[in-house]
């Protein structure tokens, strides 16, 4: 298959320098790792700004850069809901209200907090599901990277996966969490500086922001939506039929803004681990708040390029979009929202097959139609509409606008996003495995050196399993879809467990355990009884019989999450009231009403985390109003 870009020596040089620095950081930090606390928790010594940028960078993986660009092309500026209500409020909440428990309890992991607050079985359930999910997420991310580089640059899938996996292994093995965090900070700046020119050049090519809005209004009208549906985030959320996301405001606010958002940012050890590595309680509380500041601006970095890909002229860049070049399935990581979806507009008569001319005619801007990887023909939905390959929106922008040199920077930033996500997964996995599974159930009273060695072994094991998972994903796409579905079911109810655990001292271990299982089952039942419009019964839902049809996948996902959360919440309360609570004395430092509030009185008002939180929320509100 033809590929979209050929690299020159300068591009390879940029990549080589990046790899050298990443590995060099690992080697330089090796000497500072002496204990298991150094390896797993970075010695609890990170300044707030370093932990904050690592907090955001660990989440800045494949789904962020590729998936959000894809969603920008697919849904427009409304994709920013994944940031402005789907992340920022939860990040503020975890910083102000939850970090005192995570950090103050001296728990070494999120599952360990569950053990301290509830009991051993609740910890085991969370630790096992998290370890499995984390390592498979890492594998899916690797698969997506290998596939993308194969399509974009013609690189061997095996080469990409093994080299990226090997580099992540080397620097996390040597320097543990400190090395991962340092590299995540480097990766954060690389991703910002690598993608920012994309927005700038793309906007210039379409006549600035107003030019992009005008073109998207035409596109929106042509697709049967109100003119502003792609450029307003809230205006058309009154009805699911009036916006490309296919969700109404209540489902969005409850499903994404509350359950999924708080469930991820407040309970996922992958990100919480970065804050737990902070040097003090105040730094730990500031970590998510500092992360929220750049996070709220990320739509302009990752979503706008996707929107631009839909409307830039194919002849506007340094090289024309290669017709018929990269266009095939690129898997997105768990939680990713970008995916191919039918586009009703382009139905050029020439579009009989996947020939180059027809592919060019069927592209929107520089977003190519999706080609069947086996037949090479353009894929269409059941109504005969062309399916666009939105996952290629951002990569096509890179090869379209960046000349040699900057292309190397952009592709390195893309690689960095995959690697930071993978390193985040691997470091979270090795900690949960060593502390919550191995130390708890296999070898409880070993020396610290033993656990340090086990952590390094778990790092090797985690990377190897990730690579194996990437090959599983390459061979059995449906298995990965299934796993992602299971992950969603397990994650959805988690925030109910944590919220009750931290803010209701009467909640018990039996209540939490049974509530979690009930919530997961409720998610499966809701999913099995509903179906997105146009989907086939199976992995998309409806396997117990279809009683409701949602307008989009996201609508179904959001309401499944709400259903799971409410079930977990109610069942946890019910079972807790029927079982014996723990004495108050055992819950000090673990429950809000029994924990001394952090005293910020000695700090100047502008240094207090609460002040930063207010600033973050006001800025987020302003962005919502500006793009309403």
């Amino acid at each position, binding site marked *: 298959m033809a590929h979209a870009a050929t690299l020159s020596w300068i591009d390879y040089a940029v990549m080589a320098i990046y790899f050298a620095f990443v590995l060099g950081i690992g080697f*330089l930090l090796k000497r500072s790792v002496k204990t298991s606390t150094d390896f797993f928790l970075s010695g609890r010594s990170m300044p707030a700004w370093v932990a904050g940028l690592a907090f955001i960078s660990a989440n800045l993986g494949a789904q962020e850069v590729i998936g959000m660009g894809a969603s920008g092309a697919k849904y427009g500026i409304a994709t920013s809901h994944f940031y402005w209500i789907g992340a920022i409020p939860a990040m503020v909440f975890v910083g102000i209200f939850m970090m005192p428990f995570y950090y103050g309890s001296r728990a070494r992991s999120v599952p360990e907090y569950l053990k301290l607050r509830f009991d051993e079985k609740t910890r085991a359930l969370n630790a096992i599901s998290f370890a499995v999910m984390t390592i498979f997420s890492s594998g899916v991310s690797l698969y997506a990277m290998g596939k993308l580089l194969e399509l974009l640059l013609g690189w061997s899938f095996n080469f990409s996966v093994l080299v990226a996996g090997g580099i992540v292994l080397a620097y996390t093995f040597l320097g543990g969490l400190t090395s991962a965090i340092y590299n995540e900070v480097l990766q954060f700046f690389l991703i910002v500086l690598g993608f920012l020119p994309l927005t700038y050049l793309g906007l210039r090519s379409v006549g600035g922001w107003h030019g992009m809005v005008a073109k998207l209004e035409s596109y929106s009208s042509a697709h049967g939506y109100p003119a502003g549906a792609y450029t307003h985030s809230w205006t058309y959320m009154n009805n699911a039929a009036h916006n490309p996301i296919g969700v109404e405001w209540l489902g969005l606010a409850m499903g994404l803004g509350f359950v999924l958002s708080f469930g991820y940012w407040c309970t996922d050890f992958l990100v919480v681990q970065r804050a737990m590595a902070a040097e003090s309680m105040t730094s730990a509380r500031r970590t998510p708040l500092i992360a929220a500041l750049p996070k709220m601006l990320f739509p302009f970095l990752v979503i706008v390029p996707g929107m631009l890909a839909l409307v830039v002229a194919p002849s506007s860049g340094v090289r024309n979009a290669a017709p018929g070049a990269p266009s095939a399935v690129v898997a997105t990581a768990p939680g990713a929202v970008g995916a191919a979806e039918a586009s009703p507009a382009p139905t050029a008569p020439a579009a009989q097959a996947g020939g180059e001319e027809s592919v060019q005619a069927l592209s929107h801007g520089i977003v190519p139609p999706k080609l069947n990887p086996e037949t090479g023909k353009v894929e269409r939905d059941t109504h005969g509409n062309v399916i666009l390959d939105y996952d290629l929106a951002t990569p096509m922008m890179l090869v379209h606008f960046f000349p040699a040199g900057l292309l190397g920077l952009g592709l390195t930033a893309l690689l960095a996003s995959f690697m930071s996500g993978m390193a985040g997964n691997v470091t979270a996995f090795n900690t949960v495995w060593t502390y919550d599974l191995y130390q708890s159930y296999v070898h409880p009273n070993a020396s610290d050196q033993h656990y340090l060695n086990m952590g390094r072994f778990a790092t090797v094991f985690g990377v190897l399993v990730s690579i194996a998972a990437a090959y599983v994903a390459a061979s059995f796409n449906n298995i990965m879809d299934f796993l992602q579905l299971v992950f969603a079911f397990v994650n959805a109810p988690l925030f109910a467990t944590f919220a009750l655990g931290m803010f209701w001292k009467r909640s018990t271990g039996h209540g939490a355990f049974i509530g979690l299982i009930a919530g997961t089952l409720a998610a499966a039942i809701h999913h099995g009884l509903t179906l997105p419009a146009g989907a086939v019964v199976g992995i998309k839902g409806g396997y117990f019989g279809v009683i409701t049809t949602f307008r989009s996948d996201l609508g179904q996902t959001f309401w499944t999450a709400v259903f799971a959360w409410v079930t977990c919440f109610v069942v946890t309360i019910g079972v807790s009231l029927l079982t014996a609570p723990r004495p108050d004395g055992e819950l000090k430092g673990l429950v809000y009403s029994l924990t001394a509030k952090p005293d910020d009185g000695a700090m100047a008002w502008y240094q207090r985390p609460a002040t930063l939180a207010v600033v973050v929320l006001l800025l987020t509100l302003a962005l919502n109003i500006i793009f309403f």
Partner: protein
Amino acid sequence: MDTSLRLDVRYPIGLFFAILGVLIGTYGFVTLERPGATPTGVPIDIVWGILMLVFGAFMLFLAERARRARIRAHDAAPGSSI
């Protein structure tokens, strides 16, 4: 963890972007006349190379300033780690 042994992350970040800035900026200058070197009329390699160099230099400045502050603090209170 003995943080005195640990690298200030601003050093590698500053050095990385300074090197990239010089490399990409110089390459952009040398290849300015080549087709495609100025997408939408902007010599982007040169512009972005300079910007990265400035950013890298700023990070190195911050790291160096912090190192000197630690040395001053150490001199003022002998026995503390740098």
